């Protein structure tokens, strides 16, 4: 008993802390009887102040800033990912490679890209300099966006966009999100409009830079989209998507493009940073390449049996079911 009392004297902080934690309703005196509460309700539990408190408060503010920023980036990133996916779905409704996109699809693209612009502009200042890689894992949306933009570029030009061609497009997107003027509607993303000369603050415009990984993994995913596009367009139009006018003796088709992309990735050294992810993506790409080459084979061996321009008459097939 004496020992316990001594503890109370030598380490009073232990005792008060314990009481605060253990008993929520009322306090007891040493003999276990409820203490009378004198006066109004005591103030809520005080935060323990000691010599370290100011330091921890400073550290807390730093951590809070980081967490808040990360949260904002993640929110925008999720939306950008969703919008990019919608762009990809819209592009999958296209049936042929052509500089001119169908009007309705171009219109959908414009609104989606305008939305992406606004989101990019909100997070652009947060991911400058050192923060670009700090939040790289929260910025998976950029990979998705690269996928959408590379796919769009492919459908228009039948080429793979380079990082150098991509970066002005990104800059343009951010720029348009920051200064929502009357020309918000984007007519053509692959040819960025010349920035207004009167925009003096232009040099201060933060940019959203793409890392090499954003680009490469975006292109990895592009192969999957190309495979889907090749499959549907071949099934529905009966021709293998590719360039060249009707008269061309040897138009380049998507089969060749896929082979070229496949070899491109096979030949690249494996990045040390994320070997596992790389191998996984490469395997998926291999499968896509093989699916498309199978399409090419089918087209060669059986394609000619179909009359040119023949389209499966789906409407008649549906009718019996409805009746």
């Amino acid at each position, binding site marked *: 008993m004496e020992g316990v009392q001594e503890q109370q004297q*030598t380490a009073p902080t232990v005792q008060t802390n314990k009481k605060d934690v253990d008993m929520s309703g009322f306090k007891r005196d040493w003999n276990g009887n409820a203490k009378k509460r004198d006066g109004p309700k005591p103030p809520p539990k005080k935060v323990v102040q*000691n010599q370290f408190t100011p330091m921890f408060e400073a550290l807390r503010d730093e951590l809070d800033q980081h967490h808040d920023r990360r949260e904002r980036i993640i929110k925008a990133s999720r939306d950008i990912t969703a919008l990019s996916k919608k762009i990809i779905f819209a592009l999958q409704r296209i049936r042929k490679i052509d500089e001119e996109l169908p009007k309705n699809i171009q219109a959908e693209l414009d609104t989606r890209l305008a939305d992406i612009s606004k989101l990019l502009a909100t997070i652009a200042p947060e991911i400058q300099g050192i923060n670009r890689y700090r939040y790289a894992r929260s910025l998976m949306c950029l990979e998705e966006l690269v996928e959408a933009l590379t796919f769009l570029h492919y459908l228009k030009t039948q080429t793979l966009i380079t990082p150098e061609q991509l970066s002005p497009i990104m800059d343009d997107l951010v720029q348009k999100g920051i200064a929502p003027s009357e020309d918000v509607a984007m007519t053509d993303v692959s040819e960025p409009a010349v920035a207004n000369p009167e925009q003096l603050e232009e040099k201060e415009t933060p940019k959203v830079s793409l890392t*090499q990984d954003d680009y490469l993994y975006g292109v990895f995913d592009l192969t999957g989209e190309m495979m889907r596009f090749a499959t549907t367009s071949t099934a529905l139009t009966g021709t293998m998507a590719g360039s060249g006018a009707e008269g061309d003796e040897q138009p380049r088709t998507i089969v060749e493009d896929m082979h070229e992309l496949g070899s491109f990735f096979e030949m*690249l050294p494996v990045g040390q940073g994320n070997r596992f992810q790389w191998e996984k993506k490469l395997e998926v790409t291999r499968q896509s390449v093989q699916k498309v080459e199978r399409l090419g084979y089918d087209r060669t061996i059986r394609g000619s049996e179909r009359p040119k321009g023949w389209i499966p008459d789906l409407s008649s097939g549906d009718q019996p079911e409805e009746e």
Partner: protein
Amino acid sequence: MPPMIDPSLFDQIKSKIEEDTTVRKELEQIVDELHQHVSFTQGLLSKIHSTPRSKYPTLLPQVEEGIKSQVTTVGKLSAYASQYPYYKYNHKWTRSLQDSLSTCLLYTWLSSPAHPLLTPSQLADFYSVPLNLVSEDKFHITTEEYLLALVAIIEDLSRLAMNSVTLGDTALAVEISAFVKDLHAGFQVLNLKNDILRKRVDSIKYAVKKVEDVVYDLSLRGLIPAAGGAAGAEGKKEE
């Protein structure tokens, strides 16, 4: 008709991947070196659990030597890593750096009876590297690294509280108790998210409990130095 893939693209990307690989290998080498120094110092510091305070004057200078080697290697790391985006490679060294910081924090805490705790900026000065950079993309010590190093010394000290009693130095246990509890209160000021820091900080409560149990055992038996923590420590030291 332009080709599918720009002919220069492959070489461009290939050389970037190769550069990345070189940087990683170089960093791994430096981090290995740091890791060796850290392990050595940690090993030396583990002797505190069996060394009475009166023998610290022979032990601590050796620890200091170990820390000096760490500081040299961190300087090397800082010079090399500052050429590249900090957070691209930060994960390669952060663990070893945290361990290094914790040896340094523990060393300073033990080296004076006043038990000073190095603040983040003091620690950064000690290593001659910047602290918590927000815009400049250079090597630095981050807030998280400092806090994680603190968690590590709390765990080590809670173990020392027990062992100091075994060595007959009950005053040290009481001093540790006060320090650990103050730090615990400090950590409760933070707003933590569900990340590694949160997970590690959650473990502090067990260290606090361990230390509290030791102090309780002492008080129960009237073994706590009468004149209170700090004075008792002074008295012990002079013996």
